[in-house]
């Protein structure tokens, strides 16, 4: 039996349709466009030819692309772990019985609100001039060369800046998480005579697992898409050792005449993100179930 569309539903549709149109125009349509371009050798301007799957084949053999994936994953993995460990510690500290709680929390959040690009420039100066200067003054051998000029260690420089900024957000989330643990739970464990260490692992930790999973997902996604800090700290160098996926797509896609090829790269990147997100959801979903 067909129902006549109620007025309410009509209103609902009137609201949704413009939003959907926008969404299709600026999200779905470009994505499909990008996919189409990925089958060409389009430079971005002028004439182009269809090359079928050649771009995709090239992707898996292209050293520079593979290097960028390796770097980005390495960066994201280390970043996520570092950030979450540091943030959890910070959150525990900022949630403990300390003075000036709100002031301290406020101060530690500042790195997050500052633009990644400018922070990169500031740290670039620090790494290139201040640190080596300290290395020379205090005779510390390994500090004497700018870390950003070393193909082996430049990624650590980028990591430091990324972590510096990301810890803030994750800490706030952990604090919220810690605040959801009711006092009486702690009471109970104290009555049982548990040590602080046990208290954390047996009581606190399991109760904040949802927050850990949120943070892991968020930090991983953010680190995978790193761009701003690369632009200002290293521009992908030295020796192309710090080219993130987003950076390479931008550089070669718009600047290097590889519009078609980088479109293929972008599509693969999209698939990678989807897979990682899905896997993460599955893992943390299971963990939440166990509890």
């Amino acid at each position, binding site marked *: 039996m067909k129902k006549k569309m109620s007025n309410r539903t009509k209103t609902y549709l009137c609201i949704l349709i413009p939003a959907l149109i926008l969404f299709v125009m600026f999200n779905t349509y470009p994505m499909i466009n990008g996919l189409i371009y990925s089958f060409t050798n389009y430079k971005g301007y*002028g004439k182009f030819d269809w090359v079928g799957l050649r771009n995709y084949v*090239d992707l898996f053999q292209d050293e520079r692309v593979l290097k960028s994936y390796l770097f980005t994953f390495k960066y994201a993995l280390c970043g996520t772990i570092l950030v979450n460990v540091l943030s959890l510690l910070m959150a525990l500290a900022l949630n403990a019985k300390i003075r000036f709680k709100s002031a301290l929390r406020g101060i530690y959040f500042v790195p997050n609100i500052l633009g990644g690009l400018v922070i990169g420039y500031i740290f670039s100066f620090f790494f290139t001039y201040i640190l080596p200067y300290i290395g020379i003054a205090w005779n510390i051998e390994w500090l004497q060369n*700018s870390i950003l*000029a070393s193909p082996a260690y430049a990624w650590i420089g980028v990591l430091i800046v990324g972590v510096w900024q990301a810890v803030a957000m994750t800490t706030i989330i952990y604090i919220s998480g810690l605040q959801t643990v009711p006092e009486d739970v702690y009471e109970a464990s104290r009555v049982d005579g548990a040590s602080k260490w046990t208290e954390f692992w047996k009581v606190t930790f399991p109760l904040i697992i949802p927050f850990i999973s949120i943070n892991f997902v968020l930090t991983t996604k953010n680190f995978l898409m790193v761009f701003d800090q690369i632009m200002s700290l290293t521009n992908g160098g030295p020796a*192309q050792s710090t080219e993130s996926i987003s950076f390479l797509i931008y550089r070669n896609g718009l600047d290097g005449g590889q519009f078609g090829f980088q479109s293929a790269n972008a599509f693969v990147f999209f698939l990678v993100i989807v897979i990682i997100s899905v896997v993460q959801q599955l893992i943390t979903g299971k963990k939440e179930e166990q509890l």
Partner: protein
Amino acid sequence: MKTFRKIMAAVLCVMMIVTLDGCAQASEDGITEIEIVSYKREAIDVMDEIQDLFNSTHDDIRLKISSPNEAMTILKTRFIRDDYPDIVAIGGDINYSNFLDAGLFMDISDLQALKEVKEGYLDIDKQLELVSMDGVYALPYVANAAGVLYNKDIFNKYGWKIPNTWDEFISLCQTIQSKGLTPLYFGYKDTWTTLAPWNALAVDLVDANICAQVNKNEATFANAYREVATKQKELLKYCQPNPYAYSYTDAATAFANGEAVMWPIGSYAISQVQSVNPDMNIDSFVMPGSNDPNKNILNSGIDVQFSIMENCPNKEAAYEVLNFLYTDEVLNMYLEDQGGVATKKGEFPIAEYLKGMETYILAGEVADFQDHHYPTEMAVDAMIQTYLLDKKKDALDTFLNKFDTDWIRYNRDLIARVQKEES
């Protein structure tokens, strides 16, 4: 509810203003507008002067010359957006080749000014065509000279002479070191600077058309570039510690402050050096790549040339502008400010800091930059930087093999076309 409507109205107004602002393009009162986008940011001041001079002497045409930062990126993005200027001022390099090949430039064979261009430079432009085309698509303006800049005062102080062979060059570096000074300075943090010594060495040691030979499968880079790569690495013994931490501007500043005696870079860097130390006594010499002085060639390419975009709607006005730019008066204005070598027939003074290369310039013993044939996405400059950083024993072979392999990969379509034409 009323406040909500007010907010919506305000927001819509803002959006409309913004859109209209972007749309207001129509030229008023019949004046033709010509826009030039120049890739030479350093020349912004003299370009402004030239622009003002033109506008004050032409009632019917209004000229606008913009010299943005990262001009090539901006140009390419504009092309992607179908937002074309009327004229572009770029170098005679791979970008020119690519844009030309994509059909972006207008044939200007009937331009008056072309008659006064030295043949050699028109030839360079011809060689830049990926596949041979009929017609002329660029007006060469100023050429650069790329060898080694040196601090004349320091040279005079110690009585040092310009080296004419590779061995003389190396022993000069060693002498400089023995005096406790730094012979060379490199700004290798900016990877493109690795190409400066590379190009200068290559013109002495390698055939000018090696790239075309490789495309036709008649040669390999592994053979041709072996000596060039080895020699460039040898130069690292004579430069400042950790050259990869310093940028192009750092190197210019250091050279200007006398922290190094020589700097292997092109004449285009002079204005940067002079901005730090205006009174510096600079001269240059041709890089002696081999031990046979007769084989020394000056590495010189077209630093600035003008091309009209294919779909420029005002061909006559554009021609007017180009002819104006090529007058002696304007050319001299540019040369005085930016230096370089004029591409125009006639007597143009050779700058003080090019004196050491004078004989080569006057005799026309010049060859274009090899890197003008390298595809941008191949990132040869980064490859060279990686090679120089590589301390392993097989660094040279790794680099050369990669060069050959990557060349084939990035030039696949071009090689296919060339080989089809041959057959």
